[in-house]
């Protein structure tokens, strides 16, 4: 490890030595930018999450401060913010709600998205391009407006209720909005293209002769699907699921527009702690635990998966 750091230092010296070399600028410009605006901000969140909350601006105590009376340095590091969010089931529940929302909607996206991606990928090239364009259009349309569209449909006097009343199927408007089902619906709707497009990318490369071969060998279609097609599309399923699952855990806009008070979600919790309660240390501790429990497992999983994939090749 230590040796590794030494060789890294030599690499830096070597590169600075050749700073007229384009390689120096190619590596260091994005490196510098990301350290400054991505890494340091995360370090600041970590720092604030360990600070003691207080009234004032900024609303937390400095980690190190000079005590004027005794002339010594005071250390104000506390883990109480973490202890607080883990002991209060209110916070932990919101995290679980977000995980379960992400899990449910990823699963539904997969169930709806897989057959669509499969049939589009299996269509003849000419009509396939048309389908593909039709799949991409919602993807490029504003995310916010697509969520808002469901507000128009689901309102008490919205389109769906109007249709049902005019068909005499119901007398009273159904209340379909402001609960966690409408949140799931909104999430599935907005994130479905993120599931379909990577799945399509994998399925379109799929060799159709494998299906024919298995058919010729007398295997039933259902068995062919589960034994051949599904296992071979696992990389696509994982890629699509990641693209849905990860952003949904931190999702703030959809619960805010379509959700009600029956379930609280993680993203909203951070937002409220910061802007409403103005408790920066708690908001930071929530964000840090979100990174620990979400982003890091996913990165570990991806690394492990890449290694596993390389081994299999």
């Amino acid at each position, binding site marked *: 490890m230590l040796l590794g750091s030494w060789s890294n230092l030599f*690499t830096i010296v070597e590169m600075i030595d050749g700073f007229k070399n384009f*390689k120096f600028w*190619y*590596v260091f410009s994005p490196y510098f930018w990301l350290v400054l605006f991505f890494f340091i901000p995360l370090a600041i969140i970590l720092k604030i999450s360990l600070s003691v909350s207080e009234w004032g601006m900024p609303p937390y105590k400095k980690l190190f401060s000079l005590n004027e009376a005794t002339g010594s340095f005071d250390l104000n590091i506390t883990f109480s913010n973490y202890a607080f969010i883990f002991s209060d089931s209110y916070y932990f529940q919101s995290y679980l709600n977000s995980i379960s929302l992400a899990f449910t909607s990823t699963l539904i996206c997969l169930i709806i998205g897989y057959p669509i991606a499969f049939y589009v990928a299996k269509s003849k*090239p000419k009509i396939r391009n048309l389908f593909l364009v039709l799949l991409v259009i919602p993807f490029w349309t504003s995310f916010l407006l697509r969520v808002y*569209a469901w507000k128009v449909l689901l309102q008490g006097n*919205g389109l769906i209720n109007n249709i049902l009343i005019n068909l005499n199927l119901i007398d009273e408007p159904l209340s379909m909005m402001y609960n966690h089902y409408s949140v799931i619906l909104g999430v599935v709707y907005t994130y479905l293209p993120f599931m379909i497009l990577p799945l399509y990318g994998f399925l379109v490369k799929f060799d159709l002769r494998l299906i024919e071969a298995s058919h010729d060998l007398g295997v039933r279609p259902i068995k062919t699907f589960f034994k051949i097609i599904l296992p071979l599309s696992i990389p696509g399923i994982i890629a699509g699921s990641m693209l849905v699952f990860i952003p949904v855990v931190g999702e703030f806009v959809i619960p805010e527009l379509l959700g009600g008070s029956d379930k609280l979600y993680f993203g909203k919790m951070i937002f409220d702690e910061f802007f409403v309660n103005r408790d920066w240390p708690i908001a930071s501790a929530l964000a840090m635990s*979100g990174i620990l429990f979400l982003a890091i497992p996913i990165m570990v999983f991806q690394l492990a998966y890449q290694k596993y994939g390389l081994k299999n090749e």
Partner: protein
Amino acid sequence: MNKVFFKYLVLIFGFIFLYFPILALIGYSFNDSKRVMVWKGFSFRWYGELFKNEQILEAFYTSIEIAALSATFATILGVMAGFSLARIAKIPFRSFFIFLSTAPLVMPEIILGLSLLLFFVTTNNLFGLPSSKGQLTVLIAHITFSVAFVAVIIQARLSSFDKNIEEAAQDLGAKPNSVIWKITTPVIMPAIISGWLLAFTLSLDDLVVASFTTGPGANTLPIVVFSKVRLGLSPEVNALSAIIMLFVVTIAVGYYIKIRNKSDVNK
């Protein structure tokens, strides 16, 4: 027969699910009534109101400006990062660099927004910079999360492209810089363009990070739209949706005609 029936059933229901909400929104944009859900008759009234709404127009210009600038800077930095990852072996603390250029992809935007806001507050306390939050801070935030997306696209393109061609050029006496400009750049040009477009859309679409990092006088279009629809429906937003849809569909149809002609030529 049964199978074909099932296929069309899936595709028809799939596309109805994807398009019905958007089409309903467009339909209501022509409603004359101030109350969105009560149909009073066909009119272009809300399109007129939309183009008279200073707040929305101003937010639109702000958004386009930030998106174009952030896409351009993010593409430059992202191309550099993607190139470094795919082609430069000696990078100090290489795994840390890989972490920095991929982590923004899996970071929930709410955490990204919060961390950047706290960063700007801290630097303001320490150095007085940035003096206030506004367009510049939103721009910096958007560049930061877009770089990773561009880097991934460029890296994927470079690793699928035969390195031997670059080496051959070098063996024939081309200098490293001219290899980059004459060989590598033309090959990855499509990836650069799609990276720019992706960065542009990500910026144009972003609400959460912009809400954290914006300040007075720098409202982007999603921020204004969100404030309008948070508590209810807005006929002007309906009209705006229809215009955006028209724009996206025009581009998509143009693209479709282009790829269709291409596949005709290939035959």
